[in-house]
């Protein structure tokens, strides 16, 4: 199907409306020279992805993204930036010099081309089947606790470990520094 037909379907317009800002925001995340802005741009991208999930009918995932990412992770990032007193204003030295940037750009662009090419080669014009209804959250829940209970438990341990370990590392323990520093 050609571009015309593609544009004739409304969802695609919606898609474009969401996707293009996402790409722009994504670019800013890696390009902007302001730490805080970068974080906010990331938020935009994630929000976009959430929107896309709703578009394809994966509500639960979408809301989780909003909750976990925008609700927690982003805040975490902001805290991190605050605590480490990273420059809140513009900081041109936020990225490596141009030489590095160019080579990195080449690498990632080639990566994009190869992967994208492979995708087109693989799926061509295959369309996502029109889903009768969105995936029911209940269904997700059932699967989660029957089929995927093990990973669920595991991930809980991951989080616990991250939490406890994070605290231990991040906290200032008295006098540890100088004694340890010697070793």
């Amino acid at each position, binding site marked *: 199907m050609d571009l015309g037909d593609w544009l004739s379907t409304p969802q695609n317009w919606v898609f474009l409306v969401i996707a293009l800002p996402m790409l722009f925001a994504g670019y800013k995340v890696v390009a902007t020279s302001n730490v805080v802005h970068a974080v906010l741009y990331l938020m935009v991208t994630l929000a976009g992805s959430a929107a896309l999930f709703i578009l394809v009918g994966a509500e639960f995932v979408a809301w989780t993204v909003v909750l976990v990412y925008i609700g927690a992770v982003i805040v975490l990032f902001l805290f991190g930036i605050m605590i480490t007193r990273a420059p809140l204003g513009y900081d041109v030295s936020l990225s490596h010099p141009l030489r590095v940037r160019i080579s990195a750009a080449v690498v990632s662009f080639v990566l994009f081309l190869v*992967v994208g090419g492979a995708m087109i080669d693989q*799926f061509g014009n295959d369309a996502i089947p029109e889903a009768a209804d969105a995936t029911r959250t209940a269904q997700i829940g059932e699967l989660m606790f029957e089929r995927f209970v093990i990973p669920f*438990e*595991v991930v809980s341990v991951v989080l616990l470990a991250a939490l406890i*370990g994070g605290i231990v590392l991040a906290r200032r323990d008295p006098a540890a520094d100088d004694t340890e*520093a010697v070793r």
Partner: protein
Amino acid sequence: MNVDYHALLPEIILGLTVLAVLVTDLLGVRKHWTAVVGLAGLFATFVPLLTLGLCESLEFCTEPAGAQRVLFGGSYVVDTFSLVLKGLFVGSTFLALLLSVGYIEEGRYWQGEFYFLVLASAFGAVVMASSRDLVTLFVALELVTGPTFLLAGWRKGDPRSNEAALKFFIIGVLSAAILLFGMSLVYGVSGSVNFGGIRAWTAANGDSALLTIGVLFTLLGFAFKVSAVPFHFWTPDTYEGAPTPVTAYLSVVSKTAGFVGLLTLSYQAFAELRDLWGPLLWILAALSMTVGNIIAVRQEDIVRLLGYSSIAQGGFILVPFGVAVAADASADDLETAFFATVTYLLIYAVMNMGAFAVVIAGENRLKSTKIADWAGLSTYAPGMAALLALFFASLAGIPPIAGWFAKFVMFASVLGVGDGWATALAVIAVINSVVAFYYYARVIKSAWFDPVPEAIPATELKDMGQTLSPSLRLALVITAFGVLVLGFFPGLIAEAGDVAKTVASGF
């Protein structure tokens, strides 16, 4: 739903142990009790492993031994392979804890949390051995890796340790992302997260460009875990910077976890895609062996040397995968290759743990890991020097110490195919093992042949560090005994490897 709790018992016990450790820590008793609890838990975990393994000889056991216990619709399987590797993980973690106790206590570290994290990571490894779908595999892998990021930085005051943690972390998350991207593609193309499903689809449709990318990304994600060249860069720094027991843990458990991923994916999920992973791992094996060995020759720091040595050993462990490049490799050959990898992993675990045990003992005594400072060790610490020689000779693969058999099965697996490429890999491996002899011998030489450096008066060394923690002594005894017995009776370990190879069946 009805779950086969017998099959899950090891995970359950281990999970409870993890929590128990945490609780003990809160109780505010002497910290090393947490370690004791952890050790006890690990020990307890062995029991169900045995009952599962020796099932038919036990009356209460319903299913015959070796039979696959398929859980959760095939996303979680308890078979001989997973049992053997769980045993390996639990055992090596046990040793790792033994190594830690003295070290951690002395260094004023956060003990309870330390053991908690180690055990959590081990828990992940154990789960990994049974994972048969991408989700479980990924999550388990993250559980293995996550805590190790933190543990690498456990020597909080030491910038080197911090560096180690950060480097490890950044490379880790990057490769995790790559891995995930690959998994997503594999899932998308094959339409299933389950190994069985993936295999079925590939069997029917063969591969495609996108699938190739997916598979490669996935495997490369694991290549990072096993620190195969060129994904090894983090290894030496992290090994050197992290607390040495953590290094030991990384070099054995977390590395082996990576190999488990490679094994299950290659021989099950991507069983039909041999022409993809065969060449890939062939290349990685050749690179890892060669680069790892050549660089190790130059090392002056013993931990760093072990880092490169473990890269090289990783290469040796990868060699059997190279069998897959042979188009006419029979199912038998592939099973042999699988057997070889598993056997190598088992022996490697024992001897590498032993090597690190000695290094920790020496570090504890000399407060240095410079090989030059270890000169003349035999004059004031003959026992330690002897053990050093023992384990390094084993790593070098000199009969009659365990290592030789690992190398042997490795050679055997690739030579058996009679394929040009496979044989070429064998020859590369031979030359590399000769190179390896040199730097392992160098350490032995320095410990035995060289005079004590003037800087350190031998008298001081004599009384210094006589207090090897009992746990460390225990670890040394276990590993030393292990390498000797396995050296003379490699049949014991070969059996384990033999039963494990069922996973590779059905080619």
